[in-house]
C-alpha cells in the first residue's frame, strides 16, 4: 500500500508552507489520510512538476475508492471465507446469533457481509475507525488470509 514516504518523494519538497503545514512530509501524511487534496499544494501545479503530479495522481487514485473509514476491498483476492465478518467486534456485538457464532449475519447492523462469494461493507459508519473517536481496530485485516481488505 501507499506510504507517506512515497508521497513525500513526489512532492516539491520546497517547504513553502502554502498548504498550511510546516513541511512537505506533514502534507504527505495529510494526503494519505485524505484530509488534504493535491490541489492544496499550489507549487505542485508548476509545469516543471507535471511528471510528479501525474505520478501522485496515479498513486493516490486507489485511495479515492476507499469508504469513509478508508476501507478498500480487493474483490479478486477475497476467498469469501468470512473470517473478517466473524472477527469484526461490531458484527459480534450487533449480531450475537449470526456472525458472532460463525453463521451468516442475521442483523442488518453488521458492517461486513459476504455476497456473491466476496466480502462487502454495508455500514461503514458503524466501524470503529469511523468518526472523531475512532480507534485503530484491525480485526478484519488481521484475520484475512489474502490481504483482500486494507485500510488507507
Amino acid at each position, binding site marked *: 500500500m501507499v506510504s507517506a514516504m512515497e508521497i513525500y518523494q513526489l512532492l516539491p519538497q520546497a517547504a513553502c508552507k502554502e498548504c498550511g503545514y510546516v513541511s512537505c512530509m506533514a502534507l504527505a501524511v495529510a494526503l494519505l489520510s485524505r484530509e488534504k487534496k493535491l490541489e492544496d499544494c499550489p507549487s505542485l501545479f508548476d509545469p516543471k512538476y507535471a511528471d510528479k503530479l501525474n505520478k501522485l495522481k496515479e498513486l493516490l487514485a486507489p485511495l479515492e475508492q476507499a469508504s469513509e473509514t478508508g476501507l478498500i476491498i480487493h474483490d479478486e483476492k477475497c476467498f469469501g*471465507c468470512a473470517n473478517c465478518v466473524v472477527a469484526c467486534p461490531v458484527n459480534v456485538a450487533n449480531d450475537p446469533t449470526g456472525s*458472532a457464532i460463525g453463521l451468516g449475519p442475521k442483523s442488518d447492523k453488521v458492517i461486513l457481509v459476504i455476497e456473491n462469494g466476496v466480502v462487502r461493507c454495508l455500514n461503514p459508519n458503524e466501524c470503529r475507525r469511523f468518526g472523531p473517536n475512532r480507534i485503530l481496530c484491525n480485526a478484519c485485516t488481521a*484475520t484475512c*488470509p489474502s490481504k483482500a481488505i486494507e485500510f488507507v
Partner: protein
Amino acid sequence: MAVCTGCSLLCEDIEVALKTGAIEKAKNLCRKGQGHFQALFSDRTVPSVEGGETSLDQAIEKAANILMNAKDPLLYGWSNSSLEAQKVGIELAKKLEAKIDDTSSFCQGQLLERVLKGELPSCTLDDVRNFADVSVFWGADPSNSHPRHLSRFSYYPRGSKRQKGYEEERNCVVIDVRKSSTAKLCSDYFRIPPGGDAEFAEAIIAILDGKMPRFGDKKRMIGLASIFKKADFGAIFPGLGLVYSLVQKMEIFENLVARLNDVSNYKVVPMVGHYNMRGFNELMLDETGYINQISFKNGVHHGSENSVTMAAKSSDACLVVGSDPLSALPFVIARSLAKSQLVVIDPRRSLTTDAAKVVIPSAMSGLESGGKAVRMDGVRISFEPIFESNLLSDEEILTRIMEAI
C-alpha cells in the same frame, strides 16, 4: 436457506436469489461455493452413447446393457452423491457382484476408517466451536480447501465456552511443508520438510514423555508441547499432507493422539474434501465392515485389489458417478479406465465424460435434487433442491439402471 454442497462443511445458511439462467445474489457462500453454484450454468452434459447424442432412455438402456454383460465391473465415485443415491449404488454393486470403491481409497480413507471404527477419538465441529481452545491443522490448508472452516468452527467464532475473541481464548497451530494461507493466520506455524510428519509427531511424543526432542527447534517444539498440555479441549484436523506422508506409519499419529489424551482431551476430525465422502464410507462400513475397496463377487471381499487404482486395470466396464477420475488419477490408471467400457453419470462435462461410452446427465445434488449427506464430522445434513429441473437425480438414474438389469 439453502445448503452448499461445495465441500464437506455443507454450510446451511446460504441465501440465493435467482433470475433466469443465473444467480442474482447469493449471501454467505464463500468463493468456492459461489463457483460451485455458478457451475450449474456451464458445461452441462447431454445423454450420449459413443459420442452421439441420444435420448435419456437410450443412454440408460445402453448403460444397463454394458454393466449387465461385463465380467468384472467396477462402480466408482460416490463422494458427490446423496446418501440415498449411494445406497442404491451399493445395492447395484451387490446385484452385479461388482467391485465398488470411492475417492476415499486414495484420499482420507485411512484416517476416516479409524475414526469411524472408534480407534481415533472424534467430535463434531459444533463441539470444536463451543469448547476447543487449540485447533491443529496438519498438512491441511482450509483457507483454500474449506474456506469457512476457521470462521464457522475452528478459530474465529464465539462458542458457549469460548465467549471471548480468538486472540484470548484460542490457539491455532499449523504444521505444513509450506507457509499456506492458513499458516499466515495461525498463532503458531511449524514448517516441516516433506515427509517429516512422522519425526515431528515422534518429537512431540518424546517431549510428553519427558525426553528431549530430536527434531526441529527444541525450544519451539517444547513450547508447542506445553500448549498441547495446557489445552482444555484440542481438535486436530489432519489433511492429505499428513495422510500421504504417513501412509504405512499411521500408528505414529495414533500414538501421538493417545499420548495427548493422557495429558488432556484431544479429538480428530479428518479434513474430508467432497461433500458426502464420509456418507459413503459410513454406509459401506454398516453394510460390509469396511469403508471402501469391496468386491461383492461370491460374498464380500475387501482388499486393495478392489481399489480404483488396481481395479481400473482389470475391470472390463466401469460406472463412474459424480467424479472425474481421468483427471484425478495417475496417467496409467486413467488410461486403463478410458479403455474400459466407461459409463458416466455426471451433471457436468469433464475429461471422464469426454472419454465415456455412455454419458447420463444428472441433477446437481444440493442444487437441483435433494437428499441427505454426512458432514466431515459425521453430522447428517438434509437439503432440498433450490432450482427447478427436470433432470433425474443420481438416485433415480441408478434405480432405473437397476430395474433395467
